[in-house]
């Protein structure tokens, strides 16, 4: 069997890369554990007040046990253990699938704790793990195909949504908005900011390339098969730069996890869909 037709292996690869994303995110939360205390900024006492169900009654009591400080560390630790379990059981699709589902459950529980402070990478990664987990457990070519399509569309949407919004903003085309990001201490870099101030053409071209890459990404899946690889290599370099410049470390792993499904979908469109049209 050609490697690209091995749907189980591609799903497992996606799950493993998402596992790295989730592992980093969880360890970072553990590093910030003191902020999860009752008087911390991620305090459950404050977050629970968002719903009457989470501050009163049986559910409230259950949530206090699960999400309160220091108990929350057990949920985070359970997720870390599960991810290591996934890495160790990667050779057995069914076992890996079950562990993925367990990671998915812990991820949903962690994400439900509070909607503030989370980022898109965590959500993309947990969706990837859940879908890959279901497909690995079922061991059906049809379900695995559906899972790969889901993951590829998720990545395509993640690229296309912000870029299609940027297309209508003139400040992106002039490089002004890219400068605003690089200027900030939160997501920017002093050296790059100074470089960009002196070279406005470089800023405009970079801004244009980012918009072009992101907005054209969904269409790359319909190109003749090997061409999608060019987009994926560019995407990988793009995320690598985002990690080093903007500090968006988990996004690299979350998006990388969706690249194998994109490769498969592009191949499938070429192999099955286009050939049926001929």
């Amino acid at each position: 069997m050609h490697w690209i037709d091995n749907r189980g292996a591609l799903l497992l690869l996606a799950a493993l890369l998402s596992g790295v994303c989730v592992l980093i995110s969880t360890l970072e939360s553990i590093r910030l554990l003191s902020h999860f205390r009752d008087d911390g900024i991620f305090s459950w006492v404050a977050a629970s007040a968002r719903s009457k169900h989470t501050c009163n009654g049986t559910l409230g009591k259950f949530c206090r046990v699960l999400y309160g400080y220091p108990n929350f560390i057990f949920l985070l630790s359970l997720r870390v253990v599960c991810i290591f379990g996934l890495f160790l059981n990667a050779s057995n699709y069914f076992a890996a699938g079950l562990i993925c589902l367990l990671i998915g459950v812990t991820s949903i529980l962690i994400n439900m704790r509070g909607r503030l402070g989370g980022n898109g990478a965590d959500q993309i990664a947990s969706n990837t793990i859940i879908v890959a987990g279901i497909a690995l457990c079922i061991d059906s070519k049809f379900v695995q195909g559906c899972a790969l399509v889901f993951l590829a569309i998720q990545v395509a949407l993640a690229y296309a949504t912000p870029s299609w919004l940027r297309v209508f903003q003139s400040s992106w085309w002039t490089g002004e908005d890219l400068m605003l990001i690089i200027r900030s201490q939160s997501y920017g870099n002093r050296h790059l900011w100074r470089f960009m101030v002196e070279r406005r053409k470089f800023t405009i071209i970079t801004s244009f390339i980012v918009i072009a890459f992101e907005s054209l990404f969904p269409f790359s899946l319909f190109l003749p098969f090997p061409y999608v690889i060019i987009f994926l290599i560019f995407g990988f370099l793009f995320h690598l730069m985002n990690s080093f410049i903007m500090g968006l470390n988990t996004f690299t792993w979350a998006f990388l996890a969706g690249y194998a499904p994109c490769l498969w979908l592009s191949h499938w469109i070429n192999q099955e869909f286009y050939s049926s049209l001929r």
Partner: protein
Amino acid sequence: MAEPHEMFLGSLMLIWVVLIALVQFDRVSLGRYDYFRILPGFRFFAPRPIAYDVKIFARTASCEGDVSTWKELFDYNQNRGNLIWNPHQKLRKMVLDLYREIATFRDADEIKHMCLSYLTVLNHSSALMKGRKQANFVQFIFTAERGFQDESNTCEILFQSNWHTI
């Protein structure tokens, strides 16, 4: 031909991905029902990025009226880009999310202290300032700094809380 349970799972994934696509258009309505947080929003820095660094400062006052200097609540340095490790990014995102929520109450003086983000920051600043000498009251502010463009540390006050008893 796929089995019924395979069709069911395939349809579930199809509905899920359609909902993810729909939530990009209307985050508010659909997001309200996203209890499991499985419908991510993909508006990264779009349509316009936030143009400044948001920080939170707090200060105390004594019963006699002596007011302390401002203290920044989170001791994170500027962004240290790294492929593997960047825990402070979570704190920065949290501060930004808290400000986004509080900002909607900026002009509502009578009810702004009832906003949950307001109470979260108040809870944290009170705890941090509790140990200070003669700290009877606490106040916090959200500020905006223009990053590397203005390194003189001048900032604009985006939001100012009332004084609260510690």
